[in-house]
């Protein structure tokens, strides 16, 4: 495998393109130049830091540091889920539900892949575990946040229908079933669309990266297939857990709809 090494000065030239965008924004009064500069700077700092952190982790190959890094990633993902909610659950479950479900789904799927297909030595080697977790996490997070958003908004919008069903002796799951179905559908949709478009519209980032690193396209494809199936599995599992868990939290043991457990619109 051969790949073309870059020095720090190499990304500097394309960075001029961003500067050009900034000039454009100034000339056309788009007022985007500050945001653009901040985003570009933030990305640079974040990525360079991540590079050093990963270098350290790959050298250490320590179960403790790897687990800590994974934990921090899950925390960022659950924060992202909460930020994307229009109506949030109150109390512990604001973060608890998203964090629990992303951890459950991404963790299970990542460990499954490490133990059965990739089998690095040791199995928790961060060079495999962390990028894998990152890709699965990103997609699971999207599924969960979409699913929860549709669930909570649906429960509020369909309140009369849900309560009528409850009043007629339906259980909380019977009453919420139409809303639950919508929520699951929304959660799965990006993954299904992603699988359908992959390879035609865009080459996936990981596959592109491997090809640039000198891997044979067919080998890169095998990796990509593995990842896509893991993502589909993780998103399905995570979205299902989050939506069913959310439905449970929006109701109580006496099968009452408890919308007061949601914050008003954020």
């Amino acid at each position: 495998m051969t790949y073309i090494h870059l020095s720090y000065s190499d990304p500097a030239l394309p960075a001029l393109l961003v500067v050009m965008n900034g000039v454009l924004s100034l000339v056309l009064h788009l007022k985007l130049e500050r945001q653009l500069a901040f985003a570009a700077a933030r990305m640079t700092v974040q990525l360079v830091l991540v590079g050093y952190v990963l270098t350290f982790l790959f050298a250490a190959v320590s179960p403790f540091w790897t687990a800590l890094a994974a934990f921090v990633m899950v925390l960022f993902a659950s924060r992202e889920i909460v930020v994307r909610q229009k109506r949030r659950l109150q109390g512990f479950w604001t973060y608890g539900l998203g964090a629990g479900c992303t951890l459950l789904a991404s963790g299970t799927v990542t460990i499954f892949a490490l133990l059965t297909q990739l089998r690095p030595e040791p199995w928790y080697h961060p060079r495999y575990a962390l990028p894998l977790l990152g890709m699965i996490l990103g997609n699971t997070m999207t599924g969960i946040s979409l699913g929860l958003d549709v669930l909570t908004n649906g429960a509020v919008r369909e309140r009369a229908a849900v309560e009528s069903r409850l009043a007629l002796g339906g259980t909380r799951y019977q009453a919420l079933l139409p809303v639950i179905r919508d929520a699951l559908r929304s959660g799965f949709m990006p993954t299904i669309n992603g699988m359908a478009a992959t390879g035609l519209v865009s080459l996936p980032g990981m596959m592109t990266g491997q090809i640039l690193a000198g891997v044979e396209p067919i080998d890169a494809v095998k990796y990509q297939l593995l990842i896509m199936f893991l993502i589909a599995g993780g998103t399905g599992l995570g979205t299902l857990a989050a939506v069913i868990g959310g439905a449970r939290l929006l109701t109580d043991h006496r099968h009452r709809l408890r919308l007061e457990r949601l914050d008003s619109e954020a």
Partner: protein
Amino acid sequence: MDPESLMLAVNALRRLHITVSFRLNDGECIALQGPSGVGKSQFLRAIADLDPNEGSVHLDGISREAMPAPVWRKLVTYVSAEPGWWADTVQEHFVAWDEAAPLVERLGLPPACGSWTIRRLSTGEKQRLGLVRALLLRSRVLLLDEPTSALDAASTATAESIVAERISTGTSVIWSTHDGAQARRIGSRLFLMAGNGSIEEQTL
């Protein structure tokens, strides 16, 4: 309390500003009268256990906590003034549309309305269909929340007589209304609800 008697017994039921105790025998109809916004719905919903509330409610001596909430609500059924709909067509909301059709027809809707979409129903049509949907459960106690608020005089009279038939066969009813004349027409007892949540029984 005599546990053998066939009745609904409500003891120190509390929901928000409302606290109330009373008994409702089989075949009785309590008219619950009070101005809009006074908490009549809250009171009826609390009996059906649709909102968190305190106090005890027994039916025939059995506590509602002794059974799952859905079972309780099939015995003690709350019917909202604005019934909700979860499927696309009318008949999907009924377990047995054949059974519903005669009642629907009596209330002035064509039996073919089963295939109508919910979208095209008027408020009054929804109210009549919501009442029929609940009547099919053959509950022991019906908690009717302004069940004729969107109906014309003829439909109101039909709805009142259909419920009266149920009462004569032993169903007990609490019927909330802001209309004093209706309260006196349908009730065998009259409860007046005031703004502070107090409920007083008046002799008819």
